């Protein structure tokens, strides 16, 4: 094809330049557009020429502050300095804006990548005729990579970072038998924060040199121990591990026990696990007891053992939990005190011949031939035996018992008496004011003389079955805290002050 024929097919450079400069009429522009839509060569030319025009625009912008400087400088120092500063600032803004805007816009405005795929052509055209295929193999981007005449500032977008969470608060761990540094009870008014509890002491469970085996949590049972302060929701059943208490705020601390281990898992959200019992400072853990300060718990303290018989030197909790009172007292062989209240309910119950209300000191004065025959020790009535009072069918809120009787205060504030281990109840006559809240029974302080009177004759070898001459004292409190006492098994009552 001759150059003349080429010119006949392609528009003149003058028209292409005029097209880029928008100086053609609408008809001319449509004609050029028509040609450009069909001619990649002319498209390459106009785009290359357009690219070459860009540095001119930059040069004119860059030259602006210099000319301004030279012109304004003749007006004097005062006006010149202000004008110079203004011109420099404006020129800097213009340069910055001009160099950054196209790149940022082009990155932002680019259509999604999936769109062109719908109409994008195949990378090669194998279906074309040989001559056409050879020509179409020419890359469309004829020009090699052209560096930009002006430095293009690569706008590096800062990575989008989600709101950085504040560093977590230092974990608070539960305390395990640390009387020197009692952990303060968390303030429930504060917003709950995640705290990880250790398993007792963060340093780990201290080994017990006297233990015959390693503490085994799974073997530790939880029993009905008296509630310590701060006791919250839930107690574990026998032989089970205390469950996780979520959101309850206060979880019952491990009650001081006589060797009954219990695992308490702190609840989530609110804060306090088994608060330090009032007045006793840091608690002393029972044997095999592990306290876990869970989520939200800052304190893993345990209440003290109420009975005072808990000993950290006890070898294994299992040995304590299975203690039985089936031994026989023989003269000179009884050597230990027995706390019946802490014993397992696995007791042999035969005809009760003797009360539980004697101690080692009391037995020491007994004859050496003292034996128990045809008798057994009855046990106290606890809430494990009955949770409601039969006549009223209301829940028992307070319960006390001795070998002779049991007393219970129900939720309605009435007092009930039972002489058959809680099987049958009779309502006590109300001789006090208000609703009864608690009831306690105390053995007679003059038991020892009465026991001495029970001493059998020498050589008889038996203990006479004789009841104490002086009865127990029953104490009843009402809502106002007033105390009524009864010494006749709840038949008559008098105010304590009287």
């Amino acid at each position, binding site marked *: *094809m001759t150059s003349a024929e080429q010119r006949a097919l392609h528009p003149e450079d003058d028209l292409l330049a005029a097209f880029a400069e928008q100086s053609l009429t609408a008809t001319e522009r449509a004609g050029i557009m028509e040609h450009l839509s069909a001619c990649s060569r002319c498209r390459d030319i106009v785009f290359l020429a357009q690219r070459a025009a860009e540095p001119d625009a930059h040069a004119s912008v860059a030259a602006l502050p210099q000319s301004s400087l030279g012109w304004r400088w003749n007006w004097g120092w005062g006006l010149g300095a202000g004008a110079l500063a203004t011109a420099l600032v404006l020129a800097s803004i213009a340069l910055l804006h001009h160099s950054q805007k196209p790149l940022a816009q082009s990155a932002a405005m680019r259509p999604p990548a999936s769109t062109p795929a719908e109409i994008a052509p195949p990378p090669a055209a194998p279906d074309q005729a040989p001559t056409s295929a050879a020509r179409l193999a020419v890359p469309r981007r004829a020009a090699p990579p052209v560096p930009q005449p002006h430095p293009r500032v690569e706008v590096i977008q800062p990575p989008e970072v989600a709101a950085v969470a504040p560093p977590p608060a230092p974990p608070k761990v539960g305390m395990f038998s640390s009387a020197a540094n009692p952990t303060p009870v968390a303030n429930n008014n504060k917003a709950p924060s995640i705290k990880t509890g250790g398993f007792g002491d963060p340093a780990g469970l201290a080994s017990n040199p006297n233990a015959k085996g390693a503490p085994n949590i799974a073997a530790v049972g939880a029993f009905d121990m008296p509630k310590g302060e701060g006791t919250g929701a839930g107690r574990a059943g026998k032989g089970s591990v205390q469950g996780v208490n979520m959101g309850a705020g206060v979880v019952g601390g491990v009650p001081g026990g006589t060797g009954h281990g219990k695992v308490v898992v702190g609840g989530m959200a609110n804060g306090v696990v088994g608060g330090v019992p009032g007045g006793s400072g840091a608690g002393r853990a029972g044997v095999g007891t592990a306290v876990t300060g869970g989520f939200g718990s800052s304190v893993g303290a345990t209440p003290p053992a109420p009975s005072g018989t808990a000993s950290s030197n006890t070898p294994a909790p299992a040995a304590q939990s299975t203690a039985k009172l089936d031994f026989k007292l023989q003269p000179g062989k009884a050597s230990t005190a027995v706390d019946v209240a802490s014993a397992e309910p696995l007791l042999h119950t035969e005809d009760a011949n003797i009360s539980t209300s004697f101690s080692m000191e009391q037995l020491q004065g007994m004859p050496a031939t003292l034996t128990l025959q045809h008798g057994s020790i009855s046990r106290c009535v606890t809430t494990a035996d009955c949770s409601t009072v039969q006549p009223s069918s209301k829940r028992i809120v307070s319960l006390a018992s001795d070998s002779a009787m049991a007393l219970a205060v129900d939720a309605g504030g009435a007092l009930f008496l039972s002489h058959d281990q809680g099987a049958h109840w009779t309502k006590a006559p109300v001789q006090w004011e208000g609703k009864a809240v608690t009831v306690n029974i105390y053995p007679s302080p003059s038991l020892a003389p009465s026991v001495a009177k029970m001493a059998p004759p020498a050589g008889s070898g038996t203990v006479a079955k004789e009841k104490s001459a002086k009865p127990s004292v029953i104490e009843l409190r009402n809502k106002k805290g007033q105390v009524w006492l009864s010494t006749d098994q709840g038949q008559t009552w008098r105010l304590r002050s009287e």
Partner: protein
Amino acid sequence: MPVPKSNQQLFLSAAVHALLNRLWKESSAADIGFSEAGFQELLQQVAEVGLWGGSQISESQQAAFLNSIRAKDLVLARACARGNETAWNIFLSEYRELLYRAASAITGDYTAGRELADSLYAELYGLATHAGARRSKFDSYMGRGSLAGWLRSVLARSYVDQYRKRRNVVAADDRELELLAAVTEIDNTVPAAPHGTLHAAVCTILSGLDAESRFLLQSYYLDGRSLAEIAGLLQVHESTISRRVKRLAGELKKQLLKRLQASGLTRRAAEEALQVDVRDMDVNVKRLLQVAETTPFQALEER
């Protein structure tokens, strides 16, 4: 080079003559050897080319055309073509650096740019002789655009041609245009391929696009031009190009779905047909987009 005498006097009215006189003065044509009469003859020649004969051109159209002419650049270029030393001095002082910068920008290399620009000087001066007369490249400048823009276009064309010569694909598009001119209609023969229906729909829709849409699609998808480049050429904002390209793609998809449904496919089947890998299609999108309803440029000149 003397301006050839035109056979027909275009500018007859007094108003146009007054306009020509004003343009002559504003362009300082007298300083570089152009008399008022020579200036009018020059513009008459340009108008004959630009107005395609111009016999039926009204007075207002003539005035509008003359006002759009870059008279000063035109006079300078033609004076340089004549070999006027003053004109060359002006040209070199005003456009020398511009030429080097533009050539460097086009080639991407300063040395190659200088070489390209220097080679253009020879063409601008006119070393080649035609019937004993020197022919300058300046003679092809008609003042429709700026002289700077024209120089950039000349540099770009020279560079594209050089590149294609090195690749042994000389005037590839010329042959393509010949081929396209020979192919009067698109081969819409639906192949026996499984995507025959889609092929027919694509052929029909792409060939029915207007020139500007085809220009956008080719520039963006086939040439790989950026939105900024296209927007810079058309002097619109990038977001405008982005919206148009996106809308165009959406309309194409919608038309394809519609046509596929008209051919008997369900909508779900039509959408599944659009998920086909484009490489599996026997469609030459480039050819479809390059075929215009009118002959590319000859029709423009024949108007």
